[in-house]
């Protein structure tokens, strides 16, 4: 029987190797004249970006300060990631699609751009969204490369006092809110990539939910990296005032490119007393081809601050793309009784490398957190969960439950779990469960005996494996995610 097992393993591996990444569904490039900054990074580039965005003087100063600090910092190397050093002088830090300045309606938007979004299946057109499932209206702040092109539904949102616009616009229109909140969750000097982001971020989204308002629709941003060699430095800030609620969806796709592209976003969330923020991401950027050439480098800093009592922040992520992923959406549980959640599905195939997880920092009393992480590794990929659960000495009765499951497909891939736990208060209870499993030959055979082909069987088993997390996704993402899992593992067997 051991012989049988080896046979099957070998087949599985061969099949995984056959995955046709060239089929990458979103691998097309749009030919739009780009308005670029000169290549590379310098103080002049920071000034160029700020000037391009007509930023006030205080913002330029803020960026330059960050740039000065960044010059003294070093790239972190503690993650289980292996990639050649990124030459920042080979990257364009600013690229905006050439369009009429500040389009006021969809008619003014470059039709080719709209065509690109159509291929991505983004319901940019309001009527398309309105024609969708009842109650599933999504306002889209579409970000094309670095500039926010069009924002929909703003009028409807404005009626409830909600602000949903590009961060560039917020800097000009709502400077007081920006000054009050920007970099208060992720400090300017937090880490190498986030500091770099402060200096050169080009656009992103800004959301403000006033006191007592429950945002009537899911807010959504689709990021898309289009230009060759453009580092995309997004900056997102979401503020939920007391007793408010918002659910935010971030979906990412990028066209196929041979060179590695750098992405270093910063997302900050602030939840005041009794407020709740739900942040969901589906990331399917180009993962590189099956030899591991090309693909996105994704170094993201995402952090939420449960600033008020009984506030709640929930991160849900589905990571299927990028060549390198370095990402730890975290919660600072400052308010008493506040709650943080992290639900993650991370799929790696071929030569993809993922080092992702979360940090739950318990500062307040009776704070609780829950972490459910599902990693699926196939091909030659490496998939690491890295998580920190910590309790401050004042965090009486803090609770955490962490469940960390890995599923391996084939025997050339790796799954790793690196949990860090710190408790400075004796009353805390932290639970950690971890499992690693393989799709067994018996499971595959059983499913096949019922008529599913090997590929359908793997997709079904993987969907079962990630079910706890999928259930936490907004309806809009659920179906998309199931399809994405199937696409990502296409050809992994059978």
């Amino acid at each position, binding site marked *: 029987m051991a012989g049988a097992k080896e*046979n*099957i393993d070998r087949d599985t591996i061969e099949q995984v190797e056959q995955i046709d990444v060239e089929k990458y569904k979103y691998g097309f490039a749009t030919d739009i004249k780009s308005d670029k900054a000169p290549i590379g990074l310098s103080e002049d580039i920071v000034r160029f970006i700020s000037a391009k965005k007509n930023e006030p003087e205080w913002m330029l100063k803020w960026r330059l300060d960050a740039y000065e600090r960044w010059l003294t910092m070093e790239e972190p190397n503690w993650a289980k990631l292996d990639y050649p050093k990124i030459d920042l002088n080979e990257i364009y830090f600013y690229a905006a699609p050439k369009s009429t300045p500040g389009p006021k309606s969809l008619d003014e938007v470059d039709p080719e751009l709209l065509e690109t979004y159509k291929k991505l299946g983004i319901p940019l057109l309001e009527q398309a969204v309105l024609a969708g499932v009842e109650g599933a209206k999504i306002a889209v702040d579409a970000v094309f490369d670095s500039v926010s092109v069009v924002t929909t539904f703003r009028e409807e949102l404005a009626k409830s006092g909600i602000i949903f616009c590009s961060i560039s616009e917020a800097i000009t229109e709502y400077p007081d809110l920006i000054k009050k909140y920007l970099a208060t969750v992720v400090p300017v000097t937090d880490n190498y990539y986030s500091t770099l982001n402060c200096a050169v971020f080009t656009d992103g989204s800004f959301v403000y939910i006033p006191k007592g308002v429950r945002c009537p629709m899911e807010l959504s941003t689709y990021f898309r990296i289009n230009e060759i060699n453009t580092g995309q430095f997004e900056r997102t800030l979401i503020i939920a005032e007391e007793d408010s609620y918002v659910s935010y969806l971030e979906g990412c796709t990028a066209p196929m490119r041979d060179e590695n592209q750098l992405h270093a976003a910063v997302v900050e969330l602030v939840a005041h007393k009794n407020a709740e923020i739900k942040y969901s991401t589906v990331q399917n950027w180009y993962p590189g081809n099956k030899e591991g050439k090309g693909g996105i480098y994704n170094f993201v800093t995402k952090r939420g601050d449960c600033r008020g009592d009984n506030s709640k922040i929930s991160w849900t992520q589905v990571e299927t793309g990028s060549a390198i992923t370095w990402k730890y959406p975290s919660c600072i549980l400052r308010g008493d009784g506040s709650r943080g959640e992290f639900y993650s599905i991370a799929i790696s195939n071929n030569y993809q490398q993922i080092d992702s997880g979360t940090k739950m920092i318990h500062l307040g009393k009776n704070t609780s957190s829950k972490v459910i992480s599902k990693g699926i590794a196939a091909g030659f990929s490496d998939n690491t969960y890295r998580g920190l659960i910590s309790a401050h000495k004042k965090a009486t009765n803090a609770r955490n439950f962490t469940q960390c499951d890995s599923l391996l497909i084939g025997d050339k891939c790796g799954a790793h779990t690196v949990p860090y736990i710190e408790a400075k208060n004796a009353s805390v209870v932290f639970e950690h469960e971890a499992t690693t499993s393989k799709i067994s030959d018996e499971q595959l055979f059983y499913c096949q005996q019922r008529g599913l082909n090997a590929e359908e069987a793997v997709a079904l088993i993987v969907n079962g494996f990630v079910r706890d997390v999928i259930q936490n996704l907004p309806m809009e993402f659920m179906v998309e995610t199931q399809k994405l899992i199937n696409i990502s593992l296409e050809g992994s067997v059978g």
Partner: protein
Amino acid sequence: MSNMLEIKDLHVKVEDKEILKGVNLTIPKGETHAIMGRNGSGKSTLSYVMAGKEGYEITKGEILLDGENILELEPNERAVKGLFLAFQYPIEIPGVATMTFLKAAMNAQRKARGEEELLTPDFMREVKSAAKMLEIDSAMLKRALNVGFSGGEKKRAEILQMALLKPKMCVFDETDSGLDIDALKIVSQGVNALRDANRSMLIITHYQRLLNYIVPDVVHVFSNGKIVKSGDKSLALELEKHGYAQYDEST
């Protein structure tokens, strides 16, 4: 073609050890046969080889399903052609609700045959009526397939799948193992309800007990990798009385 299954001089090796040593078996359409033999005689190997499990080297012989040699086909292709194996130890599929699995299997088979996918109301109707016959409640259908199921639940879930997939050749591998008498009756009733002129069945067991409830047309005695004797249902009773020893080959 009046034979549903023909196995001709089948020889199978596992890791250089010959397990099946020339199996010959013909099951006409609509008939139910039983294979009885002691543990380790190669009965389960026969069922796995029929279903196409990997790891078995077929050195000689063929298996015809409804006149077509199936040995080159993938397990799922054999399933689509109407071969169903009820497992001795049904496999757990964590996170996949029984209902979800049933629908995936039915639609996969329909797709492979070029048929339209089932509409949810039609699917629900079919599942409900089959589940009722097997005394399976809706709560069980929502649980992950076979995960935490009792022995009886697992076997009933197997028969439920069979009832919905409507195979033409059903193979039961030690279906009575792990069943108490009540579960045995329910499972047997379910199987008997599916017997018809266009469906054949092969029951693999080492106890006569199951054959009191599912009465076979023909009983075969299996020993040392092949069928050594065939007869009517009285052969099962005779085996129960005198044991398998008389059929062991002298070495």
